[in-house]
């Protein structure tokens, strides 16, 4: 059946900010879908609040809306655009939930918008626990024994522990858990009921220890179903699949058992009624008896489907989009092979392993036990010819800074144990290894580094010895058909002791672009955005773009993005071997965050050219002594600083610099272990971390500024000057950020631009540079410079309507700034479009109970949103909505701030009072406000003796709509401040932990206007006209 002719325009909903359980896999899916829909002549409209996505680039859809993903936001776009259809299956749980809400409120019917991909009844059958159970049972299959409850007294008395709690309609099993006794059940159930937007929780038979499998299916409207991929979880049931090490295809089932799963999966997808798209179905299987339980189904693309796509080469999202508009599987070509239809199920002649990456070090106090609630922030995938090879590649792709504590989980299948036992690195001498030994060891999957470590030698020496024996990797194609049919695939992985396949033979010069590896806090989708644009830019400049990355969620690892894709760990060994094969004209390291920078020196040592900014600039910027000397020479102010070793020296140095000070280890990434200290005691404690520490003067109350600029080595173009909402001391990645900077006068702005213009060429930047500055009492200080693409590049690009990465690539390829015909920077940096753009961070505190949800120098956000409006308050209010914490317009505000903030609080409290808010405060704060003549009620702290409800009770019971609580230096302890913030988090009440944040919020509450959604294309058009 061919494409439907009754649809002309389609609106696609994205998944919003990156959160745990919902990452850039939906950008990948959305991009693929948009690509095929546009090729087919549909008008496409995108709504997504996440500026770091590729799908929200102006070139990817006809109309792009960076609007909050709530009913109001999407309805506004639908009203304006009046599309024929809405496609909700590419944007994860967020988009599905929104589609259901839009349908239930009658908005889709009123506007005549058809839901395609998954109609509401299908979504309900898959997502509503009770309906799903009935559907599966009617199809002749079993689900875990369970009861759906909406309160504690509905839990049956005879329940046998352990039981699993699964709240309905939440992301990644969010809010769930395993209860082993009635007490634990009590506690977890309350939280789970609170987390479920419909107050519904499934209390379920525990299948702890059963094997867990997932199948990725596609089904069309002619009732054809194919299984794209099977995935086996190495961690058995009980650990969320997002946190499990998984392997594809499944390894331990014989054919008959696997076919039973396949039959069950097809029966379930048919019964649920998905008939124009893909689904992911999860099973538990008792290893001995073969008993099966259907666990859940996602009637949409998912994290697992992204993994399956990368694992097999089968473009699930593309095919799903085609199915949604009416095609059948036999009509859709598989563009990886070019010769087979989408009904040809992939066959693998290799193994794929996925490893999760965690960020527990960012959340001290949080429970690190893995369970049914997903906690990992990213993942890496490895491809090898054997399980062991794939496993080792995936494991080292995680780029852990510290020790690797992974152990095969108890209860894992013995097959995995036996395979892993074969992977021991040799102990002995490198000199004893001859060619055959090298081939054998490399075929196991051992890295040069692992072999070197086993022999007590340096990695470089091992590499030289190995190469001396002529042992080099071979590259094989991922072609979805195990070489059975001719495939023109450009997607490769390495292995050893085999023949090399499809050597590059083009005549164009090549660039190797190094990606950013697994998502982690501080290095996420923003860098993938940059890498994808770099690939596009270099292709447009006449190069062949060669991509190296190991993150299966990303657009950069879509084989469509580059001329050749190497799905490989971002290690020196892999990158150098790829260079040796590709003989690139240059290697591009400035777009993948810190990951490629770590490899730069070795790449240069082997004689490969770094395109654009040389590594020397990175070293100059990161070495504090050298950087300070440079600034001094350029007459640029930096906060006074010094190094110290040990507690005593640190305290002495801090005294000399003057309090407050910022203390951190001397080589620091992403604000790790950074601390603001107000006295010698805390400095001494902070210096105890060992090694040398860096002590900076902390510019209290300063405005922090982020600048993204382009430089060709001589001239500098200041592209964006952004102001942080939170004051210095909050990590720039966690702070909200405004463009154009609202509180800078012309003189200060000119001064900032001038500093950046002096600094960038002096560092030797050719391409992008990010400079962070602080303005205190009209004085401008440089805090740091990063001679590479920064986290803010996608936001800045979208806010100013200029593709900064493309410009940087042209500079790196040798163009001068003057060749780029850029608009005058003053125009851009100051936002002539009349629009104010705000970027707000999204924090994962709700996933880490036990960790203090307070902003600080350590970055902890997983993602960001962007909102634009004609004025700042409206943009701020929209950004908060987009970040999932809409500001209240009325109600009760609870205030509790440290002494230093009390004067500043008066203004905030006055405004809230005028806006009609009832004010409640703890004793000290209440007294300060009362003294200023503001009506305020007193509530007691938990630690304060007395009668009646405590603050925490008020917040928990939902008697509070806004919390302003600045820490008293009591972060992380089981202190009052912590308890208040945790209660707010649990009750989903917006909790503001800085005074600057509070001022901004009050402004937004007071002055936000209702406004019309404006598409990115319209804004850029307006900007071009005014420029």
């Amino acid at each position, binding site marked *: 059946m061919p494409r439907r002719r009754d649809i002309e325009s389609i609106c696609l909903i994205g998944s919003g900010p990156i959160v745990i359980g919902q990452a850039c896999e939906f950008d990948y899916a959305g991009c693929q879908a948009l690509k095929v829909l546009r090729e087919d002549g549909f008008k496409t409209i995108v709504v997504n609040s996440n500026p770091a996505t590729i799908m929200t680039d102006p070139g990817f859809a006809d109309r792009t809306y960076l609007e909050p993903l709530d009913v109001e936001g999407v309805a506004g776009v639908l009203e304006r655009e009046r599309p024929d259809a809405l496609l909700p299956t590419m944007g994860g749980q967020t988009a599905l939930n929104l589609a259901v809400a839009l349908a239930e409120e009658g908005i889709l019917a009123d506007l005549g918008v058809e839901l395609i991909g998954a109609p509401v009844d299908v979504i309900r059958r898959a997502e509503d626990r009770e309906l799903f159970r009935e559907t599966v049972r009617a199809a002749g299959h079993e689900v875990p024994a369970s009861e759906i409850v909406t309160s504690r007294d509905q839990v049956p008395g005879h329940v046998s522990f352990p039981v699993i709690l699964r709240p309905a309609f939440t992301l990644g099993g969010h809010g769930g858990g395993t209860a082993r006794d009635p007490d634990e059940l009590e506690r977890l159930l309350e939280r789970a009921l609170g987390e479920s937007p419909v107050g519904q929780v499934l209390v379920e038979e525990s299948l702890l220890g059963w094997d867990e499998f997932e199948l990725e299916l596609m089904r069309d409207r*002619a009732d054809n179903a194919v299984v794209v991929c099977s995935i086996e979880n190495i961690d058995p049931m009980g650990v969320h699949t997002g946190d499990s090490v998984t392997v594809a295809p499944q390894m331990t089932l014989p054919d008959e058992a696997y076919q039973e799963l396949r039959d069950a999966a097809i029966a379930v997808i048919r019964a649920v009624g998905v008939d124009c798209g893909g689904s992911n179905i999860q099973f538990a299987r008792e290893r001995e008896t073969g008993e099966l339980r259907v666990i859940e189904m996602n009637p949409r693309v998912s994290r697992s489907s992204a993994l399956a796509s990368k694992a097999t080469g089968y473009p699930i999202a593309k095919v799903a989009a085609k199915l949604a508009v009416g095609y059948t599987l036999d009509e859709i070509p598989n563009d990886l092979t070019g010769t087979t239809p989408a009904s040809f199920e992939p066959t693998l002649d290799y193994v794929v392993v996925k490893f999760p990456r965690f960020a527990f070090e960012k959340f001290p106090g949080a429970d690190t036990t893995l369970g049914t609630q997903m906690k990992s922030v990213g993942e890496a995938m490895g491809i090898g010819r054997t399980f062991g090879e794939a496993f080792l590649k995936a494991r080292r792709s995680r780029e852990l800074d510290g020790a690797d504590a992974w152990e095969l989980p108890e209860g894992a299948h013995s097959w995995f144990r036996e395979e892993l036992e074969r992977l021991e690195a040799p102990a002995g001498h490198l000199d004893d290894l001859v060619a055959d030994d090298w081939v054998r060891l490399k075929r196991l999957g051992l890295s040069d580094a692992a072999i070197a470590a086993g022999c007590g030698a340096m990695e470089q020496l091992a590499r030289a010895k190995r190469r001396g024996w002529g042992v080099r990797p071979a590259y094989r194609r991922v072609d979805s058909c195990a070489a*059975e049919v001719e495939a023109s695939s450009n997607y490769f992985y390495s292995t050893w002791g*085999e023949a090399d396949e499809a050597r590059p033979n083009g005549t164009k010069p090549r660039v190797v672009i190094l990606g950013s590896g697994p998502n982690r806090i501080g290095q996420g989708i923003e860098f993938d955005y940059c890498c994808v644009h770099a690939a596009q830019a270099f292709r447009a400049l006449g190069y062949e773009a060669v991509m190296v990355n190991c993150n299966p969620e990303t657009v950069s690892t879509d084989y469509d993005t580059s001329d050749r894709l190497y799905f490989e760990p971002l290690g020196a060994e892999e990158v150098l071997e790829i260079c040796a094969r590709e003989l690139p004209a240059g290697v591009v390291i400035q777009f993948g965050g810190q990951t490629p920078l770590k490899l730069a020196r070795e790449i240069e040592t082997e004689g490969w050219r770094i395109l654009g900014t040389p590594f020397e600039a990175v070293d100059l910027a990161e070495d504090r002594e050298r950087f300070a000397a440079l600034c001094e020479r350029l007459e640029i102010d930096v906060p006074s600083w010094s190094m110290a070793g040990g507690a005593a020296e640190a305290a002495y140095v801090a005294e000399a610099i003057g309090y407050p000070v910022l203390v951190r280890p001397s080589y620091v990434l992403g604000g790790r272990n950074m601390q603001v200290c107000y006295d010698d005691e805390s400095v001494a404690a902070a210096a105890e971390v060992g090694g040398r520490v860096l002590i900076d003067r902390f510019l209290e109350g300063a405005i922090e500024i982020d600048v993204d600029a382009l430089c060709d080595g001589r001239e500098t173009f200041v592209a964006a000057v952004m102001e942080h909402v939170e004051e210095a001391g909050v990590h720039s990645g966690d702070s909200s950020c405004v463009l154009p900077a609202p509180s800078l006068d012309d003189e200060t702005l000119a001064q900032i631009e001038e500093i950046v213009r002096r600094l960038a060429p002096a560092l030797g930047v050719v391409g992008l540079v990010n400079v962070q500055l602080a303005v205190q009492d009209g004085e401008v200080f440089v805090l740091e410079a990063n001679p590479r693409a920064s986290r803010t590049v996608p936001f800045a690009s979208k806010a100013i309507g200029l593709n900064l990465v493309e410009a940087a690539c042209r500079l790196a390829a040798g163009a001068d700034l003057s060749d780029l015909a850029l608009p005058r920077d003053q125009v851009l940096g100051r936002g002539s479009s009349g629009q104010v753009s705000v970027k707000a961070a999204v924090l994962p505190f709700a996933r880490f109970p036990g960790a203090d949800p307070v902003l600080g120098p350590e970055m902890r956000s997983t993602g960001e949103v962007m909102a634009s409006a004609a004025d700042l308050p409206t943009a701020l209010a929209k950004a908060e909505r987009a970040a999932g914490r809409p500001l209240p317009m009325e109600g009760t505000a609870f205030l509790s701030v440290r002494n230093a903030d009390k004067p500043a609080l008066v203004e905030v409290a006055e405004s809230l009072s005028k806006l009609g808010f009832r004010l409640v405060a703890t004793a000290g704060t209440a007294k300060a406000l009362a003294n200023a003549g503001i009506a305020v009620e007193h509530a007691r702290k938990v630690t304060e003796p007395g009668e009646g409800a405590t603050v925490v009770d008020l917040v928990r019971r939902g008697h509070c709509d806004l919390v302003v609580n600045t820490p008293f230096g009591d972060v992380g302890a089981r202190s009052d401040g912590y308890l208040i913030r945790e209660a707010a988090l649990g009750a989903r009440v917006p909790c503001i932990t800085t005074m600057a944040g509070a001022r901004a919020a009050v402004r937004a509450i007071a002055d936000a206007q209702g406004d019309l959604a404006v598409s990115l294309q319209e804004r850029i058009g307006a900007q071009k006209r005014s420029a």
Partner: protein
Amino acid sequence: MREARGPAWTDWLHDQGVVALTGIDTRSLVLHLRQAGAMRAIAIGGEASVDEALNAVRAQPEMAGRDLAAKVSTRDPFVFSDAGWSRIAVVDYGCKRSILNRLAWSGAAVTVYPHGVDADELVDYDGVLLSNGPGDPEPLRDEQATIRNLIGRVPVLGICLGHQLLALATGRTTYKLPFGHRGANHPVLERTTNGVLVTSQNHGFAVAPGQSREETHVSLYDGTVEGLELRNERARSVQFHPEAGPGPHVAWGILESWVEEVGGLAKAA
């Protein structure tokens, strides 16, 4: 289920006289076959030069034109399952056990006959299944003659080699594919329903396509004939393996409905 690893596994292979290869670059082998076509091969355990190996390979007869069924067919008839609501005879050209299992599971009493069986011995059954088997169907002239003699007298279902023999017996031609269809993932379009079956396949020869309506199934990969139905003769056949094993079960229905259908016909008669 025997676990395919460890000493128990290799000992068992040894007992059965089965050669196993491990550690070779299988993908390069597949690529070679895909480019150069299916070819004779040799596995050498001891010391031998390339020339010696090549000579040994070249001394082997080609696959095309060889009568291989006789080597693998049962010598004597035997009853595989004695109870069932339809009575099925299977002509064994190298029959997979999973076909017999699937027939029995579908409710058939199954008796297996050697490849050289006389048609007259088969006509009293409710249906005759022409099994799969190795190699080229073309040289199996006696088998084709038997089928010619058989069709029209009793319902017939051919699988794989059985499909090709039915085609040859009814005037069609077969040819050698460049490298065959091998795998458990081959999509086949079922013309009667316009549905896609994901099938298990393992064959190196194929029926040459005509334009007739009798071609009920077609490969979505290369358009080769995947199924025939000769209504007047009550004969049908599929190139793929509906019994799967290994492979997806979606075509089980073909065997089940045939068993039911021929049993019903026999009772109605």
